């Protein structure tokens, strides 16, 4: 099963790839979607760079997975 971006509906085989796409795109609609889920896009970015591990990408992957059923 492919995972879709909740904003632009582009598809990738894994939710991590969608997470990368969202971070990499970073335009207003994508940032706002992250905001609507209760997270700050910028803070997640900074968390990713300032702490070891891959926490922010994992959070985003989870958000993407949770959203799949709602994407038309």
């Amino acid at each position: 099963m492919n995972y879709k971006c909740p904003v632009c509906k582009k598809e990738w085989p894994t939710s991590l790839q969608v997470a990368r796409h969202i971070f990499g795109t970073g335009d207003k609609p994508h940032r706002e979607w992250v905001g609507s889920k209760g997270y700050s896009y910028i803070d997640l970015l900074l968390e990713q760079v300032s702490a070891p591990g891959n926490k922010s990408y994992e959070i985003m992957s989870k958000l993407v997975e949770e959203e799949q059923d709602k994407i038309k």
Partner: protein
Amino acid sequence: MSTEIKELKFTTFKTNIKYSVINKRVHNIDGLAKVTGRATYTFDVKLPNMLYGKILRSPHPHARIVNIDASKALAMPGVIAVATGKDTPGVKQGIWRRYPELCDEQILPLEKVRYIGEPVAAVAAVTEEIAEKALELIDVEYEVLPPVFQPLDAIRKDAPIIHEGVERNINVTRHIEWGDVDDAFAEAEKDGYIREDWFRTSSQHHMCMETRAAVSSFTPDGKLTVYCSTQSPYYMQALLAGVLDMREGDIRVIAHYVGGGFGGKFELDAAIFCSAVLSKKTFRPVKIVFTREEDFIASKRRTPMHYYIRTAMKKDGTFLAREVRVFTNGGAYTGMGATALYLTGFFCSFPYKWRGYRYDGYRVYTNTLPSTAMRGFGAPQAMFCSEQQIEWMCADLGLDPYEVRRKNAHTECYEVPGQAYIQSCGMTQCIDKIEAWAKSKGNLGPNRAIGVSAAGFMSGGIFNWFDTPYSFSSAVVVINYDGKVDLYVGCQEIGQGSNTTMAIICAETLGVKIEDINVYSGDTAHSPADLGAWGSRQTLMAGNAVKMAAEDAKRQLLEFAYAEMGLNIVYDLDIKDRWVHVIARPERGMKYEDLVKRAIRGKDGQRIIGRGYYTPHRKGMISPAYSYMMQAVDAEIDPETGKITLHEVMTAHDCGQPINPLGLIGQLEGAASMALGFGYLEDQPMDEGKILNPNLVDYKVIRATEMPKTDMIEIDTYEAEGPYGAKEAGEGLTNPTAAALGNAIFHALGLQMKELPITSEKIVNALKEKKEKQGK
């Protein structure tokens, strides 16, 4: 100082072809014009009725432009025009035509200035002196805004916003990842070794012999001709069309001789833009030449970086995973810095195989001179951090650093997951050669050691952020009645020997002498579109286009030869050294000149024309091919003063088939001087955003007397994607040097230097710190 190629040895794919022109030591075909002073650089261009332009620059790092009053300047005798942002279409420009949000720079800004030295207005006058004086008469009212200079300050919540709408001043982010990084780190935590380090790399000026310069001439028929110092006439033509609201075809860009580029001259600069705007206003030619100081303060720079690297390896030295985080100081605008951000992340994995690799890069706007591409394109910064950390990890574990590098090195036909396909690769041979060389030197005595570093680099970039609709490189070969060949190329000669390389490839392919070739480049009116001289792309990309064009022309000639000679169709013909012959019976043939004459008559008087082009396909994300190298720096350090004495730089280098060994030596020496400067001398310290050393007294570049002996062992592989097996040779040689110097200092004094440049002062301080720690 001397350079020689010690050895030429085929290692990867041995070819039995004997070349007539390739791999011969050829002097640059434009050398005579240069050494006799007849080469016309932009500085030398003088047109009738020409005006001289000067640029007024911002004294503030961050300010709103409230008003510009040029009335007093315009009243000054000899002043013809003043241009401000209001005289332009106000287009935010940049090389990122596929990504408009990254096109963020108005060269004459309408609302805000974002760094000290940013252009605010430009004057055209009958003399340069009058233009200079007139600048003092322009009144600019600013509303000064709070500035921010460091990326780690600029991302804070309360930091001033430099570009409206760009949250926390984060300009661009880049992420690269493959494999299960966390799993690999977990394995290392159980039974391996993990090390993390923080580094800082510095700024560097491109230091071209020729400063930015342009002469623009706009005529009443709506045509614009621009003579300029650029790495890409095609880019300048297209970018000018965008910012001036003109058609590309109405703009002609001429750059016959260029005094160096090094990555700093393929964006639109203020000399080009302001001279064009002033010429459009006055209908007279306008010349602008940057002073050396202007070049320092307003022509962009190498990207300074904050680097964090965490690396995991098995106890036997097998690499497991690497995690890299980078913040770069982007300065006020995007420029080419976004690509440097990607490439530094990619090349920090080079030239090794990793089970898992993760990179997060952040480019941050600050109120400083914008950073951009510079020779190595982010890779020298990556290698400085990566290769020192590898050396330290080997020391920590008691492993042989040569063996560890060999164990993990790229090999032929390796795929960097999701990123790159490696075809030819001479990395392990490079390691073998440098290890043997270093060991042959024996004991060097106290405070002196050899440090090594591996590296690799791309042979041109695949990325098409410019969104060009044209082939990446194109060439046209025209054979005339007397056998002379006109070669039209869009690739750009900037002093690196591009025209000579193209002439060699053309001559070899056609089977003629190099003196039979006339190369025409650097003029958009005659040269086919080509992306230009950056990213080590020309030998492979333009070389392939030239080879294809020459093969096309040669095929047409040989068709006539077949008919003329009445041969059995199973016989093959070729041309070598101007002799058209049957390959199996070389004595049977005819003169090239005779064949050309007959062929042209046979084509109803048409000259023989061959066309060639090249655009990479199915070669991954980065480049069609990669060079490899291992470099050793022999350095001695005075522990009292921290002074570094460089004894020798030896490089084992895989650039595929060398096209011109003399050109290769020139690239090696140039790269060594630039990269050693990056390693221990060059920096651009700032105070409140103002560069403190914008002159050649205070900005230290390596001098001839400080230049060590540089030698090369060429590892001669064959790259299937390159013309005659050639790939990158030149830019990549900048990558390993600072790291090798750092490793020499590590082995000589036991210091781990994490900040560039490694100045004498830093060495003395590090020694003091080491002694204090030992005392405790």
